[in-house]
């Protein structure tokens, strides 16, 4: 999924009505958001965090210092490890590590659904065939409030 499409999908999930336009930069096609007032923002997770704030859903970035750091850590993991590798072995390692991390957790931060879950889900979708999705869904699909909207969006995209 191209970064721009992913961000548009995120906008929808966040309930942001006015869609932004994104350009892409460089060989990795890094998304760029031109904000109305102020400089542009570059980078998938940077823009995603910005959108979350725009939607007044800061809790998706974590509530405590620890949660905030954990969210950012997994966002970084998404753009460096999940996006950065394409060899089968690397991907297998990523999946194995994530699975083992999530064994005793519902979400990446523990019990709260955050932006890290959304972006990691989007990112993994690229190479987890539908048959493997249950590994994650098993953990992510919990009837938590709020999270349903996001999952619907994420699943809808995954089903495309």
């Amino acid at each position: 999924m191209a970064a721009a499409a992913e961000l548009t999908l995120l906008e929808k999930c966040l309930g942001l009505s006015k869609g932004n336009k994104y350009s892409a930069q460089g060989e990795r096609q890094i998304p760029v958001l031109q904000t109305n007032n102020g400089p542009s923002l570059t980078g998938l997770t940077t823009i995603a965090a910005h959108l979350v704030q725009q939607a007044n859903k800061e809790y998706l970035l974590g509530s405590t210092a620890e949660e905030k750091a954990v969210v950012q850590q997994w966002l970084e993991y998404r753009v460096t490890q999940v996006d950065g590798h394409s060899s089968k072995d690397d991907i297998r390692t990523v999946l194995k590590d994530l699975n083992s991390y999530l064994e005793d957790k519902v979400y990446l931060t523990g019990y709260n659904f955050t932006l890290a879950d959304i972006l990691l889900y989007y990112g993994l979708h690229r190479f987890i065939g539908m048959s493997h999705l249950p590994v994650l869904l098993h953990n992510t699909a919990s009837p938590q409030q709020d999270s349903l909207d996001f999952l619907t969006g994420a699943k809808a995209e995954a089903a495309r």
Partner: protein
Amino acid sequence: MRLFVSEGAPGSLPVLAAAGRAQGRAELLISTVGPEECVVPFLTRPKVPVLQLDSGNYLFSTSAICRYFFLLSGWEQDDLTNQWLEWEATELQPALSAALYYLVVQGKKGEDVFSPVRRALTHIDHSLSRRSCPFLAGETESLADIVLWGALYPLLQDPAYLPEELGALHSWFQTLSSQEPCQRAAETVLKQQGVLALRPYLQKQPQPSFLEGRAVSNEPEEEELATLSEEEIAMAVAAWEKGLESLPPVQPQQNPVLPVAGEKNVLITSALPYVNNVPHLGNIIGCVLSADVFARYSRLRQWNTLYLCGTDEYGTATETKAMEEGLTPQEICDKYHVIHADIYRWFNISFDIFGRTTTPQQTKITQDIFQRLVARGFVLQDTVEQLRCEHCARFLADRFVEGMCPFCGYEEARGDQCDKCGKLINAIELKKPQCKVCRSCPVVKSSRHLFLDLPKLGKPLEEWLEKTLPGSDWTPNARFIIRSWLRDGLKPRCITRDLKWGTPVPLEGFEDKVFYVWFDATIGYLSITANYTDQWEKWWKNPEQVSLYQFMAKDNVPFHGLVFPCSALGAEDNYTLVSHLIATEYLNYEDGKFSKSRGVGVFGDMAQDTGIPADIWRFYLLYIRPEGQDSAFSWTDMLLKNNSELLNNLGNFINRAGMFVSKFFGGFVPEMVLTSDDRRLLAHVTLELQHYHQLLEKVRIRDALRSILTISRHGNQYIQVNEPWKRIKGSEADRQRAGTVTGLAVNIAALLSIMLQPYMPTVSATIQAQLQLPPPACSILLTNFLCTLPAGHQIGTVSPLFQKLENDQIESLRQRFSGGQAKAPPKPAAVETMTTAGPQQIQVLMDEVTKQGNTVRELKAQKADKNQVAAEVAKLLDLKKQLALAEGKPLETPKGKKKK
């Protein structure tokens, strides 16, 4: 919480520097573990540093650990910091780990280490200077600063990797390095061993994936929209309103161009191409085309500009070629000089002089410099052992000897290298050597030679460099190369050769020798100028008033930056020395190198046969100019850039702006009533124009081209948002708005035509003719955006500027230049030598194609009947096919036929 670190792990630097922030908020224990210990239970691969939190959770990302420490101290996250940290993780780290791997694990130095990180460092420097903030995310030191500082410290603590020209980065780095938490972290991690302290850790790491082919990139640096102050907007509007009045009078063209005291005088040289090599695209972008852009820019600034180049004609290679072709060296030079001149004319290179090195002036000036060097004791004599063919009565250059390889016994080893085992050979070590010309056996003879005493000239050279380099625009690679030559120590260099085709050595006992080309080739610039004007010394013996810009590929740096300055300094005759040495990296072709012998790549004389206009070639070559790093020519990319940047962006904007004036306002520029949005746009365009000037003044040619495209993008957005084509049908107010938008847009188009002039001179002239831009505005580019097409100005006929490049067209060109010609007979340059049909026949076909092409165009323009057009098109295609057949182009070229 517990922090796990490992000896020499670079991540410890930022983490320890940030740890101070958390002091008093939580207890921090530090444990040292081995580099391969798996601390984090869920991660397969070892990772340090790691912070285990009191909750039991782990932070294994260096940035996340630092962020956590900052968050504990009450700091709040912001977009800009997030952006820097994301950039650090995705862009800086891969580049940096490659550089550190080269430096620490592989023991490389200089360019090898620096080039992976150059772009990243430049990015930081630009961001700092553009925002004019001392720190990355604002006025105070913050998380982004610590994370980036910690990442960069191991490399940048060695001043060799922190070039002075990155001034903003330099002072940012010094500021942070001098702070106590950073200092302590550096001492703890590097233990005063410098970067080598990282070796135990880095050796155990896998080779960074960056090393596998991410080094070549044609992608631009990003564009950022700056925030504007009210003053900036007001100033831009004031300048705009002054319009044409603010243009200074156009200075008449002088002939000859001479420097004028008190004015800016710019002398530009492009490396002299060797006469019997047809230049390929890499040679063209490396020097002549780059220098041409700067020369044209310099003239637009009304600086006194002299741009010169010429063919380098002396030397062994010419003698060999002459023998092969059965001509005299002079005849060879005469023949090839014309080929060169034609190629550059086709590329629209605006030389004031395109001369040659085989002239009496060359002899006179070279001998004069030599005599002065002798008189001042800077020339040594020594004996060199060489092979001499008694039969041909001459010493043999390496390429004239063949024999048995002393290492592997291969029979046909060359004088300099064995093709079989690849080892380098000293020609006198060859067994059973043979003269390649007469096949007799040469003998080893000693020959007296002259040497330039570089060690003795080292001191004046270093003094001159110290005076010249700071604040100048020498490219970083040139500085590196000179620095490494000086570091390795200067050695005497032989300046004579046992040849006939060269400048004679005016010294007793050396009558049968000539100067070695590298000694006198750089003197060619002086002699070419002397052939242009007898007042050449006003340019070349006038260092106070003349700025000398020399353009070349990086392999030429030592001769221009070191050897020639030594000769000139030693001659003590007040020579003008290079003020700005502009060296490019290399241009590759598709995935490999250009190769004349294998027929791979596009050479100057072939570009014109592709049907792609010279300006498109210029644009694409400048767009991918190997500025700061190697780049690659790619057909697909060329198609992409032509269709996206030229056709859809630039061409589309300029054409629309002009069309609106023609269609909606009868060809007259409408009244403009500026709203606050328009004023902002004016200011943005002005800012981008100033950025363009800053870049070109620093000879950052490729980056400045981006500014043109950015302005055009702004323009397109502006039209798109304001929809003049709808408003023109609306109320009075709407119609006025349509007028303002159209008027402003067409003025931006006019500005773009001038900014484009150095890059695409023909397209620029076409736009200016279409818009009927007043002549003074065409030849001067100020630093402000002026209204050059005021209300009421009548424009001319507007038509599209660019053509789409089609996939199949590009695909067939790619195949044509991919080495399919490898088996074809060697083709020195002239097109007719490789044709299978006679030149007259081809000329006839070409004329017919042109004629038929015109017929088709006329019919299309008249909107003639479709079937009629189709029939004529079919004829045209058939003619083109015949022509291609006659030229032997798309078909397999016959093997081993026709050796001229």
